[in-house]
């Protein structure tokens, strides 16, 4: 290896450790006793690694239930988004009808509206229809996605028109062509939309904070935040909670990195 290559690797290693440092520190501190955390200078690695903090998290908050709630809500949002967005993207790519442009613009316009600007009336709606502390109150408002619709439309436009013409000659209905041809050909991009929807729902904080009051209906993000507001702030406990909540998303990142990158870069590079 040339000196240049060695230098490159050294820089990359240092950069990676600095960027990932907060995460590595959270893991390390979750395995320390509270007395070691209090020593000076601040420790880096646990002297006697212990799982006590994890046991304490389980005793302090119903983290299993929070994880279940988050998984139920995020999965429901993903399924909802895949259905609504693929149907809409199909209409915007294969079907020809008057008003299509205007309706496309209507979809486009939702991207300009920040969720926080509508959060007050949305909260009131959910309260009025009795959806506070329910899964549907957490999930239904997010089941349509303009961004997902655009990603899918771009992918659907790549599907050869000849397939559509052939299907019509064979007498297939538009719905049948959608289900038997378009959907199976679009699995990778559907994966992108799914991972994106799952991560962004699982990581939500503001909305679940507003619409859940009962302890058992809280989601992971709001749930671990409680550990911060315990009478005494125990960082070992908080870090154990943080690790338990972050592991599913980090696993998803490793498994679905390609899909995520495709989603993130769709708007940025092609322009």
């Amino acid at each position, binding site marked *: 290896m040339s000196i240049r290559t060695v230098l*490159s690797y050294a820089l*990359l*290693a240092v*950069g*990676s450790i600095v*960027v*990932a440092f*907060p*995460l590595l*520190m959270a893991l390390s501190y979750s395995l320390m006793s509270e007395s070691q*955390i209090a020593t000076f200078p*601040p420790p880096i690695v646990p002297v006697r690694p212990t799982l006590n903090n994890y046991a304490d998290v389980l005793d302090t908050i119903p983290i299993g239930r929070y994880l279940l709630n988050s998984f139920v809500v995020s999965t429901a949002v993903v399924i909802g988004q895949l*259905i609504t*967005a693929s*149907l*809409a993207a*199909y*209409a915007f790519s294969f*079907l020809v009808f008057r*008003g299509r442009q205007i*309706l496309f613009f209507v*979809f486009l316009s*939702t991207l*300009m*509206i*920040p969720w*926080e*600007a*509508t959060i*007050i*009336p*949305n909260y009131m*709606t959910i309260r009025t229809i009795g959806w506070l502390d329910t899964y549907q109150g957490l999930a*239904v*408002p997010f*089941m*349509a996605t303009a961004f997902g619709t655009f990603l899918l439309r771009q992918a659907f436009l790549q599907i050869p028109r000849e397939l559509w013409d052939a299907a019509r000659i064979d007498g297939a209905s538009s719905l049948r062509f959608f289900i038997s041809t378009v959907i199976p050909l679009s699995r990778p991009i559907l994966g992108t939309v799914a991972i994106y929807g799952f*991560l962004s729902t*699982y*990581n939500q*904080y*503001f909305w679940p904070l507003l619409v859940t009051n009962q302890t058992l209906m809280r989601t992971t*993000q*709001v749930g*671990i*935040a409680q550990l911060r507001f315990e009478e005494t702030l125990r*960082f070992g406990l*908080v870090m154990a909670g943080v690790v338990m*909540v*972050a592991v599913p*998303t*980090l696993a*998803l990142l*490793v498994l679905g*990195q390609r899909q995520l990158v495709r989603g*993130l*870069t769709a708007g*940025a*590079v092609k*322009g």
Partner: protein
Amino acid sequence: MGWKSRDTRDFGIGLAYLAPSLILFAAFVFVPLAQSIYLSFFNTRATGVATTFAGLDHYLELLTSPAFRTGLLATTLFAVYTVPIGIALGLVLAVMLNQRLRGINVFRTMMSSTIAISAAVGALIWLLLLNPSLGLLNYILSLVGIPGPDWLIQPTTAIIAVSMTTIWLTLGTNIIVLLAGLQSVPEEIYEAARLDGARGLRMFRSITMPMVSPSLFFLLVVDTISVLQAFTQIHLLTRGGPVDSTRVLVYSIYQDAFQNFQFGYASAQAVILLLLVMALTLIQFRFVERRVHYQ
């Protein structure tokens, strides 16, 4: 032009496919948007029911309120601290990651790992890092002779602490977007520049920067919008304090609506948030359009 029966039928079919999305958008985006604007002109009861017409009172009150001015200043400082530094750091790391080396993907995954990290998780980790006695940040600063402040207690440093947390949280996205931008630069362009004798910084300034400028511009808009929408890290680190120094726009909406129950006044702030985000998005759309046209 009139509608033939065929037009009507095609329209009906198209609309049927769009209906699930349109119904959800109507219920949770468009109608609430109209309600936000409507509420901003009214006084409300603590339950949120509109009572008396307030006209522009809430907006006039915002103009003269010192608390709102402090909030806007906090929001601006937050954006100024977070966005440029976050993008610059992302660019440096993306350039490092844009090399053909064995095992480069391991480094790419590590450096972009924060895309999967929620704001709540990030804020709780930084709460420890920033802790003046237990945290590593002040210890590291003390090693180079800088006395670390009590970050979250002083108004001037609290907003910096929130910004550092946010820079870290957005770094993953910034790296991925910029790396994709760098990778879309054709190798021949670099070759040609190299033949012309361009190296190092010169190459970076005259080839890399212009080629990734669309990605930089995209991030400038997107990161600014996400800073405008930030809530979680503030709720978990500072609760808007000390003395309102981190009471950014969205946090102010939260407190006025859900703690002070002034839904009309909070809605006026929501409308201002809406206008800011719309303006930024329109700039982005215009820019993209122009690029596509004159490419």
